[in-house]
């Protein structure tokens, strides 16, 4: 039996068991998308933690692809149903989770596994954990079968150079960046400061490198001005100052990883504002 047939068999058996256990009344299967997660083993725990939070907000068929190219070529797959109890609802909903380990050469050709598992007519997202391997077949194939690639440039070394490689994908797939989403409260703050910031010449960011680069790139692109960036390192964006004047920090707690990814899954088309920011980081 092929791996896809085996996954479908497992899913079918699980659905029948759920229905039988509930006296013929199956829980509701709910999907708003297919969510592909490319998670090399070292990223897997973080990916699973984010997924646990995300699943409540965006029920989807989730496919974890775990590449292990250095091992003997084979594919192992395991399917599960995940129940979510909705507050105030009498029925639970469930969605499907498929974990696929791609060993050896299979790790370089994931499209043939992903394509038959995509839910028809619904958008397909891929959250690519870590820095994508630019030019590699696995990235090329995934980009070819999903509608949106979601990265977090905060996970990458070698910035800002890596943004140039990312930019090359913009005409092939819609791209989102969790680092840019993290900046949303600060971008709103800056937008609220308009027109006082309209002639900005310098921006100082206390925060991670990716966030600082993207914020400066966004300001340059939007204001169409040269704007110098200075940065003080911090784990999260703690302060932003324009021409020496500090902005009031955004209200409330910063969103968690699940919320950030969830927000990206609400975006369906190309994000031209992000693309312009990336093109202006340098």
């Amino acid at each position, binding site marked *: 039996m092929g791996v896809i047939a085996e996954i479908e068999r497992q899913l079918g058996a699980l659905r029948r068991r759920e229905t039988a256990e509930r006296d013929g009344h199956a829980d*509701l299967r*709910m999907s*708003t998308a297919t969510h592909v997660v490319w998670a090399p083993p070292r990223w897997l725990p973080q990916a699973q933690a984010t997924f646990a939070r995300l699943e*409540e*907000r*965006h*029920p989807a068929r989730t496919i974890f692809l775990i590449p292990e190219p250095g091992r003997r070529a084979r594919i192992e797959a395991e399917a599960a149903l995940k129940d*979510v109890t*909705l*507050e*105030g*609802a*009498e*029925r639970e*909903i469930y969605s499907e989770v498929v974990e696929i380990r791609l060993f050896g050469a299979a790790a370089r050709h994931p499209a043939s596994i992903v394509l038959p598992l995509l839910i028809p007519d619904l958008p397909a997202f891929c959250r690519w954990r870590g820095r994508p391997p630019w030019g590699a077949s696995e990235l090329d194939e995934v980009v070819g079968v999903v509608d949106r690639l979601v990265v977090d440039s905060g996970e990458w070394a070698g910035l800002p150079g890596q943004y140039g490689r990312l930019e090359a994908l913009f005409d092939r797939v819609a791209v989102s960046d969790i680092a840019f989403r993290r900046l*949303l409260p600060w*971008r*709103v703050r*800056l*937008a609220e400061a*308009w*027109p006082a*910031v309209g002639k900005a010449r310098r921006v100082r960011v206390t925060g991670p490198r990716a966030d600082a680069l993207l914020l400066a790139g966004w*300001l340059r692109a*939007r*204001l*169409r001005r040269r704007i110098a960036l200075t940065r003080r390192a911090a784990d999260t964006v703690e302060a932003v100052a324009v021409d020496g004047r500090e902005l009031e920090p955004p*209200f*409330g707690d910063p969103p968690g990883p699940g919320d950030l990814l969830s927000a990206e899954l609400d975006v369906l088309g190309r*994000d*031209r*504002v*992000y693309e312009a920011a990336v093109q202006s980081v340098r």
Partner: protein
Amino acid sequence: MSNPLAEGLPVRRRPDPCAIVIFGASGDLTRRKLFPALYALAYRRLLPEQFAIVGVARTERTTKEFLADMRAGVREHGRDPLKSEVWNWLADGVRYVATEFDSDPGEDALARTLLELDEERGTQGNRLYYLAIPPQAFETVVGELGERRTGSGWTRVIVEKPFGTDLASATELNTLLHRWFDEHEVFRIDHYLGKETVQNMLALRFANGIFEPIWNRQFIDHVQITVAESMGIEGRAGFYERSGAIRDIFQNHLLQLLALTAMEPPIDFTADSVRNEKVKVLRALHTPGPKSVVRGQYGPGWVEGEEAPGYREEPGVASSSETETYFAAKLFVDNWRWADTPFYVRAGKRLARRETSIAIQFQRAPHPPFADVAGDGLRPNVLLIHVQPDEGVSLAVGAKVPGAGMTIRTVHMDFLYGGAFRTGLPEAYERLILDSMLGDATLFTREDEVEEQWKLVDAIIGAWQRDRPSFPNYQAGGWGPAAADELVHRDGRSWRRH
């Protein structure tokens, strides 16, 4: 020049600076619904930065005591965690004014407080008055507000239901309001319209190409609208004895659900376009004859595993009360789209379960070739819109039972609203308060809608004066009187099975 930094940012509907003044602030509604809604808006930063709340009520207490009560209300009934930074921001702008509604010194104190808030909080003279007061206090408060209206800033008035008790009183209220306020400044709340699932009804109908072509008498056999409550009158005998099910539910919620189901597509989603279409439906409603109306009152029984007293045994209810706790009717919308298509509606208390739903039952398949082998009678398709609980949409379709032969069974395809968009459904009051601050009256009832609704109710109640009902006529915990079943059985139909 437009703000280039705003491009791509989520469009945030932030209202003008303003103060909301809640009359009747010591009531349950303020603690259970209004403050939790205001807190939820503050939590999401949807309130203007220059904002204030003034609670006005007869009860003597300080702002500090009022705030402590509201804080407990938010903790108990709010949908978000109580965060001190959010609460403190909201609480800083809260004042409480204890006053009799008809006292000049009290009105002076309120006016002074509002002027102070304009100075301290920058509310710029914009006022949103929320009238959560008994109808008998209405005239005094509206008159005072009108007389003291200043020229600076905008003024809007939110009016809670009940909006009158019949056509004459509703018209009188409208006349009173219009003496001081224009129609676009009046926001009559029907909180059902603030529910996400009710708004989703418009999305379902007008954002999907597949429904509208079959949304008419040629394809729809009939429509059933149910507003069922399992609870009783919860200590509100004084109110309920005067209103009954027809005024409490049918006049507003039920007729609004019917109007949204039957209305023509509006040309846009502006307040007047939507309300123009709804009022056309209300005008087209044919007054049902006595045989098309059923009223009932519950006797003792068991509801959700607990023994429940009959209505006449409820505290504060007269032992010979003729107030109806159940109402059902067969209605017709006399227009091109719906001619001869019955709308069966029912609303009641102490029914078997809480449920608000709209069921669109389609015509049977014209020639089912497998009628002889249908497992359960090959039922027609039903599109079921669940307003509460389990908000969502189901479609009942016939499907083949796997195996030899051709046995057909009805199965449900379900879309659970909260399951697909798990962002936490906002409470109706959040949406409605925000819309009124923004001056958007789309989800509020217009003067002519209210009057059309009362015209129909008055005509039905007028016929009731001629006979005495035999109450109680249904058991608490059931699905209403037998006559309600007969109402639909006569037409060869039945209420949906639950």
